[in-house]
């Protein structure tokens, strides 16, 4: 599918927001799903790059992705101009289940794991009301979309250097909450695996249900190559992050 760049904005040093329009099944997008984007038109980059869908406007028929330029592929994406077309596949994978969500919800995002949680929060908020949203960034430079999250709930920011919000990791902000083990019924998270692992440890003894979105290097992005597996706690066959995920019940996967 070919979509077009409708807008491209530099949010911080290396973070870019791209609004994409053109034919795409916007209506079927679930929060947590991703698109797999071809880089260039030649043979310099033969693997697509998976990027989460961060927002959808189903009326204007467009979607937003947010990416950090870390390597050749994301750098190329950050250099697109309005009107350029992109070859994208998607929406791919399974997103965050939200149907059965009830009770107090905690959303925890870290760094470039934050964007898909925006779409999630927008969809969850009408269902469950006030959300507790905890976002961790490296520093002030690294923060983005704080204003977009603000209306969706009770937003706490943590930065490693304390330049915005609380100082430290998001997990420190969680344990700083009184009775954190009993405070929430649902947890949704996306961010570096080290963060997800730390969160899992915090809640593993509790009754909190929830989901995490995982990342792994991908080749096909559609479930055909078995490149992107994660292992499940019950030692069953490995699960493909691109197909069975990227969102998993946080108790089911080994982090």
């Amino acid at each position, binding site marked *: 599918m070919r979509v077009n760049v409708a807008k491209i904005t530099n949010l911080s040093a290396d973070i870019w927001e791209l609004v994409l329009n053109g034919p795409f099944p916007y209506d079927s997008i679930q929060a947590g799903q991703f698109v797999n984007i*071809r880089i260039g038109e030649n*043979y*310099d*980059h*033969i*693997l*697509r790059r998976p990027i989460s869908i961060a927002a959808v406007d189903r009326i204007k028929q467009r979607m937003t992705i947010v990416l950090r330029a870390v390597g050749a592929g994301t750098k190329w994406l950050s250099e697109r101009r309005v009107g350029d077309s992109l*070859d994208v*596949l998607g929406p791919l994978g399974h997103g965050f289940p939200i149907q059965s969500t009830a009770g107090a919800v905690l959303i925890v995002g870290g760094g470039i794991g934050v964007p898909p949680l925006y779409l999630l929060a927008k969809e969850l908020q009408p269902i469950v009301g006030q959300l507790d949203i905890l976002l961790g960034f490296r520093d002030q430079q690294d923060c983005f979309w704080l204003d977009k999250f603000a209306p969706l709930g009770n937003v706490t920011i943590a930065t490693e250097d304390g330049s915005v919000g609380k100082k430290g990791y998001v997990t420190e902000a969680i344990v700083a909450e009184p009775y954190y083990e009993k405070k929430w019924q649902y947890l949704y998270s996306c961010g570096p695996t080290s963060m997800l692992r730390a969160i899992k440890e915090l809640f593993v003894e509790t009754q909190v249900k929830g989901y995490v979105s995982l990342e*792994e*290097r*991908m*080749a*096909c*992005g*559609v*479930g*055909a*190559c*078995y*490149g*992107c*597996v*994660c292992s499940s706690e019950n030692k069953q*066959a*490995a699960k493909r992050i691109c*197909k069975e995920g990227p969102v998993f019940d946080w108790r089911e996967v080994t982090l």
Partner: protein
Amino acid sequence: MNKPDLTVDLAGLVLKNPVMPASGCFGYGREYAQYYALETLGAVVVKATTLEPWLGNATPRVTEVRGGMLNAIGLANPGLQKVVQEELVWLSTQNVPIIVNVAGRTEDEYCQVSEAIANCELAHAVELNVSCPNVKCGGISFGVDPHVLQDLVQMVKRVCALPLFVKLSPNVTSIGDMAQAAEQGGADGISLINTLIGMEINIHRRKPVLANGIGGLSGPGIKPVAVRMVYQAAKVVSIPIIGMGGIFTGADAIEFMMAGATAVMVGTANFTDPYACPTIIDQIKEFMVDNAITSLAEIRGCVL
């Protein structure tokens, strides 16, 4: 001009066109069936199947490199029983010939799986992936010693009634010797090339990018090696050859056929573009029309 005839005959297995997805790059077909009808393809080649389920390697298993990619999937698959019951049963409803890629750690494992695939009557051919480590020979691959290979092929041929294609490893001194060994062992055809062995190091972390350290190199960069090997193999065997390695366009496929291949497989290109196979089929057709080629036999091996 008449419509170009794309059919090819692979040791009695007639394909409506010479293009198949390469093993391991197309799952069991389900994922790509959402993009186009599988019956568009010459055949579907499924992931390596082993006797028991294999979990495969730790992640990261794939990485892009200049000119291609490295993979160390480790032949992860749910094992013979599930492959037959859950995958082949479904795939056999798709109106397309099925080729099952078979792997093992011992000759006996290869034989058991190949025999079972033949007996299940859902598949049309077996492709032996001989790049697996042979536990009896200290982990050296079956595909690097002509004698070991010939014995393996002979044993499998005895128990498997389906057309048997032997998929050669390119990591050898003489591909001609390996091709001849396969032919002498009774192979009905050979397919080549499997991946070259490669490695990438993350210089910031000071360790290999793939958890497995080394991995298989595939994609555009290996095409010249693959074409050369098809050419060298075609010079010394008379059984049909299925060529692959970096095929991304119809022109690439034609190149392999001119080097001596009867059919081709497309691996990595599926990842770049899920429509790679049907596009390549169309491009081959177009080339035939433009060049007044009525049958692929006219160009097969024309540079030999």
